């Protein structure tokens, strides 16, 4: 890759002892990813990561939708930090890009306007009796994965390589806007060309696709999506990106933001239904992965364990391409082999119906 500018933007990422903060969207839409992250870190890499049951949502969605006031979210964030300190950690890790942006924004606000920190400290004390302790480092979970990318590469069972042709897979990486567009120095590689996902892809054998709309937003933008009247604008953004990337024939998209992963995936279905356009080989859609799923596949995790059946666009063509062995029949079986139901066939999820639950019926 020609780009080297990312090296100018580095940041301090802790090697161990992380305090984990979950993402509202990911918990619900990609629960497998968050679990995989914890597993990869603690089991594969053997680092200390604490998933604290006491922590809450950062209320970022509410904040960006103008329903949660600044003072409130500051206090909530202060509480998260307090919990971290109480648990004996100082490296705060956020699973959500929105939250990551919120934490950075609030830490910077406290720095620029110390009186707001004092006020928050007071509110936190009054409300919960806890003491605010600011974290030593703050990172997004993708930063952590990026940090350990070489270690993961060493343990790789699969590489991002087309098993049939031996060619590297063409991967579109998409970075959530709030990762580095608010504070360029908060991201690996700055705001223009963040390297966090590209670094993983390159170390695991794939090729990053550099397409014109690479830096464009996916269109989630809270108020864009949450208000139905604005959804046309939301989908138009994803549409623009998909149109721009499709000539490069990407094998899959990987994103580090909950909203982006969800919308780049689900809008493919909506676009297909709206105007008949489908992307990807054979018009079956371009699979959209989380970086945990990507790492999980590299490390040899079972795709269904990773929760990849939650995607709108079927991932089976990608799994076949990577030469990953999986049980097609187990796709829609939940815990203990229980059938969890399956979506109606659509343009972008049209895998052949040769699943056991079909037979059972």
């Amino acid at each position: 890759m020609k780009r080297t500018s990312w090296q100018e933007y580095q940041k301090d990422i802790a090697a161990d002892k992380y305090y984990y903060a979950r993402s509202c969207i990911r918990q619900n839409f990609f629960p497998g990813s968050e679990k995989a992250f914890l597993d990869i870190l603690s089991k594969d890499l053997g680092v200390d990561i604490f998933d604290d049951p006491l922590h809450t949502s950062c209320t970022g969605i509410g904040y960006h939708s103008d329903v949660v006031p600044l003072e409130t979210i500051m206090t909530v964030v202060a509480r998260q930090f307090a919990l971290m300190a109480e648990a004996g950690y100082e490296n705060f890790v956020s699973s959500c890009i929105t939250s990551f942006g919120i934490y950075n924004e609030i830490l910077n606000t406290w720095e620029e306007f110390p009186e707001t920190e004092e006020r928050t400290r007071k509110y936190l004390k009054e409300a919960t009796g806890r003491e605010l302790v600011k974290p030593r480092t703050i990172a997004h979970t993708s930063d952590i994965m990026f940090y350990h990318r070489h270690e993961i590469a060493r343990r790789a069972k699969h590489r991002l390589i087309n098993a049939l042709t031996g060619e590297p897979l063409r991967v579109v990486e998409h970075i959530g806007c709030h990762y580095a567009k608010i504070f360029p120095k908060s991201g690996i590689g700055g705001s223009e060309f963040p390297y966090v996902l590209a670094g993983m892809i390159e170390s695991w054998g794939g090729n990053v696709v550099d397409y014109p709309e690479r830096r464009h937003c996916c269109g989630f933008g809270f108020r864009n999506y949450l208000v139905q009247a604005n959804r046309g604008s939301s989908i138009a953004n994803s549409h623009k990106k998909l149109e721009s990337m499709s000539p490069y024939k990407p094998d899959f998209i990987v994103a580090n933001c909950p909203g982006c992963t969800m919308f780049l995936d689900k809008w493919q279905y909506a676009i297909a239904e709206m105007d008949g356009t489908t992307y990807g080989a054979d018009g079956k859609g371009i699979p959209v992965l989380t970086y945990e799923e990507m790492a999980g596949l590299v490390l040899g995790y079972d795709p269904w364990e990773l929760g990849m059946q939650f995607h709108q666009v079927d991932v089976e063509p990608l799994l076949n391409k990577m030469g990953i062995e999986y049980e097609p029949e187990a796709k829609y079986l939940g815990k203990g082999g229980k059938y969890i139901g399956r979506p109606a066939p659509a343009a972008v999820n049209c895998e052949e119906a040769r699943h056991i639950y079909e037979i059972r019926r």
Partner: protein
Amino acid sequence: MRSLNFGYAISHPRAIDMDNNDLRKSRAIIEEMPELQACISCGSCTASCTAGNITNFNFRKLHTSVRRGEYKGAYEELNKCMLCGKCRLVCPRGINTRGLIMLIKRKLGDF
């Protein structure tokens, strides 16, 4: 083609798309009166405009859009002009604005 109603559609981009806009008419207009390109967007024409005093008619913006191949509504908008000629009198670049208005109308109105 299927089309399922989600209650919204893919919004048309607001951006001026210079790759897909049909620039033929714009080129023909500039070819006939190259002085249009000499506009430095000072806004004198719009500021002095008799029609602009009563409506939101903005010749500067309009001809700029037309030059970019954005013709939609331009003809109708130009019909607000009363052709009084004040703009020509104030244009610091000496652009024959009245002639231009007639030319653009002719090219866009196909007559």
